[in-house]
């Protein structure tokens, strides 16, 4: 899906650049954990800042990478460095999803897939 360029909303320069919002869901154990901490995680509308990617949103919510098995962006499993846009829909999935859907939805990567290796310096792509 090609990157969409959003028209910039111009605010007074002291404020951060505001790029819109995303719809956020967490499932299974993650939902339970976030609910216990009163963090919105069921059809939650979260502010999105310019240049943020999935990992930035998860960091802000206090979700560690090892708590995640996969993330959906607009209904497809996507890497954590996926750049987000206004109106995107994201969902965080902890380990434990049953079904061959682990394979079929791309949650379980092929053992030959190099891109899954984590790097030390993390940058949004």
């Amino acid at each position, binding site marked *: 899906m090609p990157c969409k360029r959003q028209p910039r909303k111009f605010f007074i320069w002291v404020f951060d650049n505001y790029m819109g919002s995303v719809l956020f*869901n967490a*499932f*299974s*154990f993650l*939902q*339970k954990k976030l609910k216990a901490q009163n963090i919105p995680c*069921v*059809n939650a509308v979260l502010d999105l800042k310019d240049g943020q990617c999935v990992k930035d949103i998860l960091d802000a919510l206090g979700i560690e990478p090892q708590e995640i*098995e996969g993330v*959906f962006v*607009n*209904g*497809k499993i996507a890497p954590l460095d996926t750049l987000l846009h206004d109106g995107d829909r994201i*969902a965080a*999935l*902890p*380990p*434990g*999803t*049953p*079904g*061959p*859907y*682990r*394979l*079929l*939805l*791309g949650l*379980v*990567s*092929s*053992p*030959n*897939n190099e891109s899954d290796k984590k790097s030390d310096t993390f940058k949004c792509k």
Partner: protein
Amino acid sequence: MSKILRINTREKTYSFETPAEDIAGLGGRALTSKMILNEVPATCHPLSKYNKLVFAPGLLSGSPAANSGRLSVGGKSPLTGGIKESNSGGLVSQKLARLGIKALVLEDKPEDDGFSMIVIKKDSVEFFAADEYVGVSNGDMITKLWERFGKRVATASIGVAGEQRLTAASIQFADPKGHPGRAAGRGGLGAVMGSKKIKAIVVDDKGTDRVALHDPEAFKAVNKKWVELLTTHPVSGQGLPAFGTAVLVNVINEAGALPTKNFRTGRFEHAKDISGEVMAENIEKRGGVASEGCHPGCVIKCSQIYNDKDNNYLTSGFEYETIWAFGSHCLIKDLDDIAMLDRLCDDLGLDTIDTGVAMGIAMEGGVIPWGDGKAAIELLNKVGTGDPMGKIIGNGAAFTGQALGVDRVPVVKRQALPAYDPRSVKAVGVTYATSTMGADHTAGYGVCQNILGVGGSIDPLKKDNNVDISKALQIATAAIDASGLCLFVAFPVLDNPEGLQMIVDMINAMYGLSLVVDDVTSLGISILKDELEFNRLAGFTPKDDRLPDMFKEEVAPHNTSWDFTDEELAQAVKF
């Protein structure tokens, strides 16, 4: 396991025989499919005396292997007209194994209308008149049978749906707690049992010894690793015990693959209200049981007891497929209504998938309003009464669609599609189209992708690789179905290359064989070949391996459509 127990339902006689050489090494689905191919004329009417009903434990059933107590039930399906294997938990598999019975075969059919039941013990096989139990629900049946024959005997029974030979009729099995929540659900095998006028089968292994193992020490060592594999994997060790299969509601909805309003879209706005997370919350609040196994020796424990608002038992074995079929498919958003519908299916003896899809078709046809859970409950209660609508619904989705003149009927080989839109998860769609079982989701499950050579990236929305994946999964699933292992062992095995070797090692230690992992693949392929041959003889052609045209339309949110050609699909069942 050394004997085949054949029961003639017309004469009420029985005999034990030594298995012939070509079936001596088989179990579970491998055995049922081979016997049906060998012994049932593929063109017979499935409700006639020529059909047979075969109950077979798996190769590992009766052993201490964790999660090995599943049962295969096979026959010619009255729903699809093809071969059928239905797989279930419960107590029958292990008890048959302990009695040394490799397969129990119901043959012929009575000439009169009287119902019987069969009680199998260590030293006897007896027939009892069962007319007093006609019309009794499966739940009450288990209570009566446990009172009469002993607590925790294994039971298999049919409800009114099977008694009336309706094509969505299931065979229900007592779970370890005595609830009727386990089912050989798909394909109408309950109608076959009803056509032979058998209301129930009781299996009592009292007085038997443990199943002998060729090398008990070796077996114990592997089983220890096997248990660790199952309990430490996040799916089998945490996800399934906590939320059951219902955890998939939110996930599949997120993926845009949750069929909503009879496969019109892939997302349901109320998915979160019928999710596994809400189910788990309700269970906790209402004093239910969050995690229990469907057979002794299960360490995954994905089943549960769901109570109603007054904290009374409502249903068990509350699965994702059921929640989908009576939920987003019908636009019903009340989880308690859906639980009642699940309970009714257990008691009436109906496949929840075909019945749920039929319910949505009843809404499509204007019989009851979309999303009306109470009306659905009222309609389902008509099954078994004199009301013709009850007969229609109880015959499943295809029959209901025809009776009501509906043009959107999501079936393959007349069996209703399960809970994943084929346009958003294309490999599952290939399985729906090409499986010998009709539209079936469990036929294409997963084992180690390395062994099966499935590599590369998987895009569920594109055609690439999905035929190969479906083919590999169908082979692997068939093999697991022969072992007596619960299909959910596939999740840890999919992620751990040693898992498949452990299964092979346990079979070798039990029987003194020297199988290797490649033999698993060969076994899976040979099962599929037997089934394909039966279906060919029954008159199936490649044109039966198609999804209905309604799936050529695009579905939101991904706006993909079903675009495989017959030639592409044919590769999935080419061996």
